């Protein structure tokens, strides 16, 4: 556990030193989405049970948790390819799972903080939004799942440019398709089935249910947790392989 804390300590020092840059990145995208889709488009959505801003905000919370916890992959790749600090960790007497758990937690911290910033934006814009323990659970689970995914992809990338491509193929489509901005009802059945399997869909559903005082969809929570475990396993495998 002490070694996990060492990984966390390192990442948290980095987070502390770059906090204002991170904060800016946590604010800008959700703010733009909120102004463009939430404010400008307020009340225009057909078929939603709540005000569009109240629909959008939980989606943005889930999306921010996903995007910024996945962002740890960039930090890892900069460490590997540019600063070469990965070798320093590889020669320390720590097991692969310690590294994976430490980095997953570090990524999750970033994702949770980014999600909190979006919630604060919701407060500023006076969006109808419930702060419940379920919401915290949904955000933490989402952040952990995408952080674990980030470790796998970071280790699979051969160059830093690869990481950008991986993000484009995995994160960007989910951000726009998985019920963040619009309900899934508009999609054809076959496409909706595919989208519902993507991890951001259950994440957005969890956050949305928690934010609107609805019962949590526990099956979806279990599904998301299972995906997280698969990502953790994959991360362990690729970290082991990354030795050479």
């Amino acid at each position, binding site marked *: 556990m*002490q*070694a996990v*804390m*060492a*990984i966390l*300590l*390192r990442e948290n*020092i*980095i987070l502390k*030193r*770059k906090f204002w840059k991170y904060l800016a990145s946590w604010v800008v995208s959700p703010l733009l989405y909120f102004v463009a889709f939430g404010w400008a488009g307020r009340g225009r959505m057909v078929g939603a049970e709540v005000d569009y801003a109240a629909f959008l905000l939980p989606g943005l919370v889930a999306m921010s948790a996903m995007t910024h916890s996945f962002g740890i992959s960039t930090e890892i790749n900069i*460490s590997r390819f540019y*600063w*070469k*600090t990965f*070798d*320093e*960790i*590889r*020669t*320390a*007497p*720590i*097991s692969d799972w310690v590294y994976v758990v430490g980095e997953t937690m570090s990524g999750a911290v970033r994702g949770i903080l980014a999600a909190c910033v979006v919630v604060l934006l919701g407060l500023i814009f006076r969006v109808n939004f419930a702060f419940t323990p379920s919401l915290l659970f949904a955000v933490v689970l989402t952040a952990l799942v995408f952080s674990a995914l980030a470790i796998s992809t970071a280790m699979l990338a051969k160059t830093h440019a690869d990481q950008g491509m991986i993000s484009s193929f995995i994160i960007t489509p989910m951000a726009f398709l998985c019920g963040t901005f619009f309900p899934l009802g508009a999609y054809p059945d076959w496409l909706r089935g595919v989208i519902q399997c993507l991890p951001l869909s259950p994440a957005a559903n969890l956050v949305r249910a928690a934010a609107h005082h609805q019962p949590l969809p526990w099956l979806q929570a279990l599904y998301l947790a299972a995906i997280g475990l698969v990502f953790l396993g994959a991360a362990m495998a690729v970290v082991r392989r990354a*030795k*050479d």
Partner: protein
Amino acid sequence: MIVLDNLVKRFGAITAVDHLSLHLEKGKIHGLLGPNGAGKTTLVRMMSTLTRPTAGKASVAGCDVERDAMGVKRSIGVVHQTLNFDPELTAEEALVVHGRLHGMKGGHLDQRVHEMLTFAGLEKEAKRLVPNFSGGMKRRLSIARAMLHEPEVILLDEPSVGLDAHARRNVWDLVRNLRDAGRTLVLTTHYMEEAQALSDRVVIVDHGKVIGDGSPEALIAEAGRVAVDHPGPSGTLTRFFESREEAAHFVASLEEPATVRAANLEDVFLKITGRHVNPKEQEGAAANASRHGHTAARKHHS
């Protein structure tokens, strides 16, 4: 302390280390000397568990690098060729993180961090961010970091590459201090001067094989203590002699000017392989010798 037995590492069609066997003793500085691409870094990476051997066995401090990688990691400190520090960390933080990764904590860790910063002459720089350090300071910090958890074996991969002469001497002093403190050191270098100045034992590596092994003095004596550089049909030629008298005899028979000098490890490599360890540096040295060495040789023989 370190046993390499028939070690092989292949990267696709390239054989970086080719059935190499070595037994490195405790408490000495072992210099692995060879040109770039000789396989030195691959050897160090295998000793430090970063790279898996394709075949053969390697053990460090009694621990097999494959079966007991964790034991190896507990026994080694590594000074990587690249100055690998997180730019957001201060010198002190870099050491604290390293210490925690090695299971150190509390007052003991604080004390060791202070001791190592003092050892590296960086105690006043503890709170400075590492990117603000010079190359020499980063290298000293890298050695301090490798020493922090008190490993038995220290692996230094090209520890003075990119440093100026003053910083290089500082690093050499640190390395000697580590040997005097009873550590076992393995040092890769392509600087023959560094290998000669620091090593108790030099292992010359080329194309992944050991082509020379012994103390610097013994290797030089084997090649011939005195070297004569003289012009040949396709550039500078070097001949080796047991004594200055024999060399003087040879120079007297030449029509062209020649340089007589003490042989060094570069010459040992040259004699074994017919090539220089550092061809570019050698070209520069030869040009210098032909500009300044001519008179010296003539004076010597007049």
